């Protein structure tokens, strides 16, 4: 059984961090059971339509990924967003913090292509500038939550017993507290800054990664090569980090990718509630600051929201693509 398949096996339970306000969990395993019905009971299914298989798994992975149209669209989307965010200031050198036109200048006007906000600041420049904070928070918080999640899950899954029980109790505790709610409280109490926001998101978003990591580690722990390493006298830390976790990586990588999307949505939600770092432009902040005027200036909230939407969409598409490419059962579709 391949790791990706195991992800599917690990029941319909979530395998991926949830977004603040929405579900994501089922996505890696949501791919429909491909040949469920088509599989003939008697005739060998692999017989027809055999194509020569490339021997290099990495190459094969890339090929399968590239054949997946939507995944490629997602990838292109992400590249465009990254270019816009990090090379944008050079291409479009407008200061996002200064007034370039009258407040609420309509989009597609002479000075500001996407219009201006309530202070007459350029929305396009704001999106370019805000992308850096949003993406940075997203990636950093995702890394944090994935590291916590993997540590907790690996320890629980590897040692089992009381360690498992107590760590799972902690996980359960974090799961009954709505994640966005807890992040809101944390940021409110510790005053909003990029650091507190990142930490808060990292602290609330790990439980589902932990559950996934635990399931994977428990599965791999039972395998022969782990037993072999144990017999050879490997220590616990070596077994966990060098023997077991590498095998558990594929689904965790997908989960980590999706965690970035989740973290971006968290950041946007917090900023929208006025819990963003007021000194740093971010997509959520632009929406939050302009939302009182949205009936007069729709563009102030529409375009930054579109940026968030396209980024998370890109991440989901790529995540799905990676997941499908890792999952040999679906390859023949």
């Amino acid at each position, binding site marked *: 059984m391949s790791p990706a398949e195991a992800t599917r096996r690990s029941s*319909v339970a979530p395998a991926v961090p949830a*977004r603040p306000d929405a579900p994501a969990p*089922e*996505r890696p395993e949501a791919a429909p059971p491909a040949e469920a019905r088509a*599989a003939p009971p008697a005739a060998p299914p692999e017989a027809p339509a055999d194509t020569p298989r490339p021997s290099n798994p990495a190459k094969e992975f890339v090929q399968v990924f590239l054949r997946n149209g939507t995944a490629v669209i997602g990838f292109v989307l992400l590249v465009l967003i990254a270019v816009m965010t990090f090379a944008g200031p050079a291409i479009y050198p407008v200061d996002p913090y200064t007034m370039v036109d009258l407040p609420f200048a309509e989009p597609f006007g002479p000075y500001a292509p996407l219009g201006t906000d309530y202070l007459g600041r350029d929305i396009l420049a704001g999106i370019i500038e805000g992308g850096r904070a949003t993406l940075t928070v997203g990636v950093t918080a995702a890394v944090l939550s994935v590291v916590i999640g993997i540590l907790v899950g690996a320890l629980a899954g590897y040692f089992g017993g009381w360690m498992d029980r107590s760590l799972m109790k902690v996980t359960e505790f974090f799961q009954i507290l709505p994640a966005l709610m807890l992040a809101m*409280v944390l940021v409110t*109490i510790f005053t909003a800054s990029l650091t507190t926001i990142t930490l808060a998101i990292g602290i609330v978003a790990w439980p589902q990664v932990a559950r996934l990591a635990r399931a994977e580690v428990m599965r791999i722990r039972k395998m022969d090569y782990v037993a072999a390493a144990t017999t050879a006298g490997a220590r616990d830390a070596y077994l966990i980090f060098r023997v077991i976790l590498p095998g558990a990586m594929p689904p965790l990588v997908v989960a980590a990718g999706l965690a970035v999307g989740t973290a971006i949505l968290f950041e946007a939600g917090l900023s*929208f509630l006025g819990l963003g770092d007021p000194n740093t432009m971010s997509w959520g902040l632009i929406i939050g600051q302009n939302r009182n005027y949205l009936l007069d200036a729709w563009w102030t909230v529409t375009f930054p929201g579109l940026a968030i939407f396209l980024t998370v969409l890109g991440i989901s598409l790529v995540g*799905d693509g990676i997941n499908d490419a890792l999952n040999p059962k679906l390859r023949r579709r």
Partner: protein
Amino acid sequence: MSRYLPALSRLAQALGLLLAVIVLNFLLIQLAPGDPVDVIVGEMGGASEEVIALMRADYGLDKPVLTQLAIYVGKVATGDFGYSYYFNQPVLTLILQRLPATILLVLSALSIAVLAGTLLGIFSARRPKGLLSHAVTIFSLAGYSAPVFWTGLMLLILFANVWPIFPVSGMTNIRGSGGPVGAVLDVAHHLVLPAVTLATIYIASYSRLARASMLEVLGADYIRTARAKGLSERRVVYGHALRNALIPVVTMVGLQFGQLFAGAVLVETVFNWPGLGRLAYESILRRDYPTLLAILFFSAVLVMVANELTDLAYRKIDPRIGGASRRRRRAKPQPKGASA
């Protein structure tokens, strides 16, 4: 006695978790810059040293931390969540006022999402290569990726400016008239946009899940048995497959209740829906810690209640789950053979 043991142990576990939430709240208060008295004094616009000292003593802030914790736990246990100086009301009163609106919103959104999501999922599973199936896939990706507050804002702009058939703010019209029936209709009218907004992402999620689960179930052996009985395709799908396909959806509903509740905070803020979420937003703006922490506490209680209810529904729907087993655990296959 032993019959009640599983229930009792679950109750004990639930109480343990709640105690942990209370302790967390207490820690957060301790860690917050300034103590509650500073905050209150700030709200009151200043007070003399003696009054402050008196208040400190009153709050037990001059006692050791553990004593303070015990006092805090005792207070919460008796329903005393403190006093909100901004709203000028006991926090508990405030929360109980706002709770029904949130529960109404969350349950409406959940019903819409489960119903619409499952139906879409089933229809698309019956024709996996059809137009609807592709539409469901695209919609579920889009629904997952759009920030819920943004979806709300877009609907708000649409229905306020372009197509004003639904109210975009609040829960009731100020000029209330038309008697009890009119009042219910008025609330329902106001409920449409927030509930649909909150439901969107879950429709996306459930339709995708229901589709996958239905496809899997339709390939199951017992579906072939049902067909072999000569049942019509409709009866095969609705009589035999549906209940099995719903099991993962029910599991997901339980697991996502917390997120749904968090989503309600954003949606209530967008549409000025006077629930707990809106209250949370207001207390963030006012740095009203007691209210904010009480909301955190109550959201945990709601999530736990929702989990128990899902568990019940789950057992109702899947006879293999019984006794003391916890949610989202599936029955193990019976050993083969045995005596006939």
